[in-house]
């Protein structure tokens, strides 16, 4: 069963989180993500959850990580400048394998930039913003419906792989209002608990250790220092560091097939749009308007880890066109994985590409 609502993207995001069992939100006001915090402030206390407005974004993400160690599904929401401040503790969450969800409603940067205009300029920052080698998971919603669904899904991915998971939205999706079908329940994949007496950072074949929830007698020491399988600091042994970092990266990268989530339109196409987030809406209209089997589309719902194999589904592709609200961040990633030419179609300033503009570019390659 579902019910119909007419919601703003940010509200759908908050409701998706609540449906997924999120019971802790630590945040700090920032445009254009603030409505997520405001909605959580209204809703969480009524359902036994905790909302706290922290003194800055450094503290927000820290509180989220602390909350997660009590076994609580926890999240924060922010935008560009706040996202930059969170990088330090996102690295800590990666190193300590703390499940958490970070919503970034992207706006124009660098610096204060365009607080009220959309951008996808943080796609590489979410992937590589922390110092050190690491991998994370990022989803990118293209509708209010997906703000709900992908936020809920982000909690499952975070818990399954014990890694910070990003909902990389943008101002257009976050502030638009549209029809949404709200399901009665969403799928919930709980984090696997550590067995009593097992080493807290020893992983099985999937590279993901069981989670030792605080307050259950595990006596786990959690540190951002390089640590051994007991969780004890071991920061000078090259082998310990090598094994740890390769596992942290491998558990995400090697699962790229099982977490892949994308849509293919016209797999026999020669000219193929690759998109995610709000530009995917323009692409959808363009492909419909052109009504030509030679024009196809790959739309990513999970952007990181990047599903390189999805590009190879287009056997006849002669060019990949990548419209983004940045100067070609995911276009560069796509180009790494294919011998077919990849052409970025950048749009800066906060406006979407128009379908007419995209059609004109596509026609140039037909």
């Amino acid at each position, binding site marked *: 069963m579902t019910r119909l609502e007419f919601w703003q993207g940010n509200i759908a995001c908050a409701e998706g989180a609540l449906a997924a069992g999120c*019971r*802790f939100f*630590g945040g700090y006001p920032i445009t254009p993500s603030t409505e997520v915090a405001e909605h959580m402030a209204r809703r969480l206390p009524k359902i036994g959850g*905790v909302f*706290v407005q*922290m*003194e*800055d974004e*450094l*503290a*927000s993400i*820290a*509180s*989220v*990580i*602390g*909350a*997660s*160690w*009590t076994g*609580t599904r*926890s999240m924060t929401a922010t935008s560009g400048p706040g996202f930059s401040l969170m990088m*330090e*503790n996102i690295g*800590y969450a990666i190193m*300590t394998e703390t499940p958490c969800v970070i919503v970034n409603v992207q706006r124009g940067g660098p610096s204060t930039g365009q607080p009220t205009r959309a951008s996808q300029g943080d796609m590489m920052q979410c992937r590589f913003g922390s110092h050190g080698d690491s991998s994370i998971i990022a989803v990118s919603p293209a509708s209010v419906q997906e703000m709900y669904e992908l936020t809920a899904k982000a909690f499952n991915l975070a818990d399954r792989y014990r890694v910070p998971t990003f909902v990389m939205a943008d101002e257009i999706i976050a502030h638009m209002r549209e029809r949404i079908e709200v399901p009665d329940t969403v799928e919930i994949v709980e984090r696997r608990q550590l067995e009593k007496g097992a080493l807290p950072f020893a992983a099985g074949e999937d590279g993901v250790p069981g989670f*030792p929830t*605080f*307050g*259950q*007698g*595990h*006596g*786990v*020491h*959690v*540190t*951002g*220092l390089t640590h051994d399988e007991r969780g*004890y*600091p071991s920061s000078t042994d090259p082998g310990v560091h090598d094994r740890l970092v390769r596992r942290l990266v491998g558990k995400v990268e090697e699962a790229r097939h099982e977490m892949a989530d994308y849509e293919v339109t016209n797999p026999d196409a020669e000219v193929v749009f690759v998109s995610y987030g709000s530009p995917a809406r323009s692409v959808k209209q363009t492909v419909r308007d052109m009504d030509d089997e030679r024009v196809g589309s790959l739309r990513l719902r999970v952007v990181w880890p990047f599903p390189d194999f999805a590009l190879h589904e287009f056997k006849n592709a002669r060019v990949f066109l990548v419209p983004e609200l940045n100067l070609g961040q995911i276009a560069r990633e796509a180009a790494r994985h294919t011998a077919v030419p990849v052409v970025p179609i950048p749009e800066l300033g906060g406006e979407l590409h128009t379908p007419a503009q995209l059609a004109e570019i596509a026609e140039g390659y037909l």
Partner: protein
Amino acid sequence: MKDFREWLREDRMPHIYCTGCGNGTVINCTLNAVNQMGWEPENTVFISGIGCSSRAPGYIITDSLHTTHGRAIPFATGVKLCRPDLHVVVFTGDGDLAAIGGNHFIHACRRNIDLTVVCMNNYIYGMTGGQGSPCTPLGAISTTTPYGCDEAPFDLASLATAAGANYVSRWTSYHVKELTRAVKAGLETPGLSFIEAMVQCPTGYGRRNKLRDARLMVQWMRDHSVLMKKWKQMEAEGRPLPEDKFPVGEFVRRHRPAMGVPEE
């Protein structure tokens, strides 16, 4: 009652602290206070930031978070708000708490979140080799104040008091009985409790400031601390307060509204 040593993670020994370091004394006093509360390791959590003081939770058998520099308190806030029934103690140092973590510190005092924060104030950054901190005394030599510190230091206990903490006291590693009692009073008080423990760092601070070993540094703290009652008396009588001395004892104990307090 347990022996405080039963709280230690013996397979982590030896610890990293230098000969003569005062941090062990503060850990000892804190664990004795925790022990006197009758708390169990499974419902007690230690949280720290970065620095010598912040290595303490790694030597204790409870669940613990050794977090990022300055951020221990906001991590602890998340734990405590989700599980008010857990006892949460934060170990920090003067650089961790007052410099990079200063904003989190004052806001935690304002919120009066139910944590006990034990700060090992050794007047310098010990872990990185003795740089000046916000608590380095005027004129003191450190590796980044080679001609004498020309910035006035923070008075951490007064800062916590002004910011709203429910319990604040300051003692030194010389005053082990008083320090243990103060930590216990902090553990008992709902809301934020702040215990400033002045500690000797002969390696990073003392040897550059004519206090060559632990004995001289502890003697210096004994001779330069003035009991709060006497300090207040001097203030009341309008007598000049000695600039090279500092008050020790209880700064405040009160019942402002607090967050994260377990329901009875």
